[in-house]
């Protein structure tokens, strides 16, 4: 079927040629449409930033952390939101074992993502949501938590403790970065 009824009487000889020109038009229109449409649609399926911001945040002077007593420390993290950098506070639980060893736990319960607290009288971390209980080492004592508390990468520079903020998938036995 032609787009419009444009065949005039006495023109029948030229029909194959006209038909061919219409095929040309159709094929190249299709080429143009696809060349443009595929990238345009795909561009709306979000960005492809691979690397997260891998910057260590300063927590505090290493000497200032009490030994064998979990402390909650707040610091600023920088998070990428497309082309904008958001600086916001975050916190971690720090357990210093000795002058050379400290564990830094993500404050997010590995069960379903609530924030747990330290109960000094029982010497346990307890999550208020579903009663997941962890000891000062981060190991599961009781409750539904599928894995120990998530530790975060740390480093010590100029006697200061730095931490790399990361998030992990809750609810699964494996520690998996989001």
């Amino acid at each position, binding site marked *: 079927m032609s787009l*419009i009824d444009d065949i005039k009487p006495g023109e029948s000889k030229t029909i*194959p040629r006209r038909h*061919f*020109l219409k095929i040309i038009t159709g094929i190249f229109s299709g*080429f143009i449409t696809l*060349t443009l449409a595929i990238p345009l649609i795909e*561009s709306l399926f979000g960005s*492809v930033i691979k690397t997260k911001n891998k910057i260590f945040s300063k927590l505090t002077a290493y000497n200032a952390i009490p030994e064998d007593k979990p402390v909650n420390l707040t610091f600023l993290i920088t998070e990428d939101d497309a082309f904008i950098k958001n600086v916001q506070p975050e916190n971690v639980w720090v357990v210093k074992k000795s002058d050379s060893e400290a564990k830094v736990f993500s404050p997010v319960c590995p069960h379903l993502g609530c924030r747990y607290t330290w109960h000094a009288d029982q010497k346990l971390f307890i999550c208020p949501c579903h009663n997941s209980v962890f000891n000062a080492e981060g190991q599961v004592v009781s409750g539904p938590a599928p894995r120990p508390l998530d530790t975060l990468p740390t480093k010590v520079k100029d006697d200061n403790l730095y931490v790399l903020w990361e998030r992990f998938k809750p609810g699964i036995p494996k520690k998996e970065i989001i």
Partner: protein
Amino acid sequence: MATKIWQWINDRMPVAKMLQLGLDEEIPGGSSFFFTLGSATLFVFIIQIVTGIWQLFYYVPTVDHAYDSLNYLRLFVPYGWLIHGLHYWGASAMVVLVGLHMLRVFVWGAYKKPREMTWLIGVLLLLITVGMSFTGAVLPWDERGYWAAVVGTSLAGTIPFVGSGLKFFIIGGNMLGQVALSRFFILHTAIIPGIAMIMIAAHIIAFRKFGSVGPWTEEKRKKSGAFWPDQVSKDIIVAAVLLLLLVLLSAFKAPPFTGPADALDASITPKPEWNFLFLYQALKFFPGSLEVIGTVGIPTLVILIFIALPFIDRQTDRNPLKRPAFMIGGFVFVILVLTLTIIGYNSNEKGTEVSVKPVSKKLFKLSTSAAEGKQLFATYGCIACHSMSGQGGTIGPVLTNESQKGRTKDWVLAQLKDPKSHNPKSIMPAFTMLNDAQLGELADFVLSEHPATSDNPVNPSATSNQAKPDNNASTTSDQNNSAQTNADTNQTVTKREAKPITPGPAADMIGNVSHGALLFQQDCESCHGTNGKGGVPNPGSLSGQVPSLNPIRKNLYSTEPQTFANNIDVIIQHGAVPAGSNPALQMFDYGDSHTLTQQQIAHLEAYILNLNGVNRAQIEVTAFTPKQYFVITAGIFLGASIILLLIGLTKKNRS
């Protein structure tokens, strides 16, 4: 079924009739590739509209995020490079096609009665294209766009009587900033394209009223061809080729990353987009008070001639051979524009050198020995601590005026061999590694006459040291974070105030490599060596040399451009002290001390990454790289063409 739907629609709306009106037309002389220029322009205009809208999914028109948001689109969004590339190259294609289209109409005499209105609307569309080109270039708010806006609006300001008011109106104040960017944005994305669409519709309606003009000889006009499908198939072939060309340019010649706009940067030579180069070049012929002739007079005159053309050239014969005066005039005009564009393109390529020339007209000629000394001054790191003619470090005193201080060569030689001979507290290292001849050359250079200033902004603290040549150890203590030392120091500078180890804003900006190379020559080369190859001695440091940046230390390197930039940004922002007992040279805190702007640091980082084979503006790809995408597109195009050609040949044979 399809026929039924078609029938149903046409019973309620005359779609078929409208199509007929648009397509059913006889072209005198038959279809021609010459007549595809108008539709090609329209095709590229549609590409501009679509890619323009798509860019708005990511771009934000604010001075602090415009450049970043555009780069986010270009590097991190799938096919963002293509969307921006098509828009960038499409803009150039628009100008070229509009020019060719006008030239075709001019040669064919197609503006003659009764098509004057079509021509006049066309002239308006030319102005609209120029306006889109100018306002669009500003939007990335990068070095190129910012300076185009500075120069462009200043040009508007030279218009007699209304100029300053007009400039104030365009930029929304006295200073080019956010309000100006918002105005350019609204002009570019709403007002001008809105007018353009109305005018294009009017242009096409006016064209349809009298149809194609056809050839000028009666002989050729006898046969005729249909617009649909004869002309349309030619139009679509040209459109497909154009699209392929635009994809090619986007893939292989991406728009430059010129770095974020930096109003303080004197090392850039603003040069307009290529389509304004002829005007830029023409301006150079009108110095001083005559300038207004170039800025306003000539463009106005050209537009007036365009408008008047159908009313001057009124004879009915369209044959170019019978209109020699007009043809010669048009030919001369085209040649003039092309020549000026080419001269403008090639002119002042090294204009950036202007920034290191002395302001004063006085000539400062160095003796051979002093010229040798100048080399030593740079390569042995003197310039890292001492500034000369406004360039160099701030740890030691300024040496620009040593010749006028009554110093003798012996005094300078003694200072070089044993700095403590004049001031026991001096922290200057003894340059015993130089031989006597070299020391003499260095002394000659220091005692030569030097230009007092340089175009480069001088670090203010550098001048404050001027009067205290012997007290160098204590004069810089006010600079807390820079590589400072205490006068009585034996414990040296191994430790500084606790420094932030976080990168600054520059780490997130995408700078320009060649601009970075220039800054590197001015600020970094004296210590890090030519092209960052290192090899410059640093007495007192553990390695004995200033670290090479090419290749750079392994723990700073990363294939990931952002990580790499973060790593070196920390050092450029906050400085560093080399390990060792008493290193003579230290890395300055270029960011903290505001010696360099964040934009300039971004340029340097792009350059240093480039030295190490990492592209700061690396595209994060999902499926295909730009080049792969072009190859695929070109392959499909070629495949389709070959199949069509074969079909065409077999059909010919059969008939």
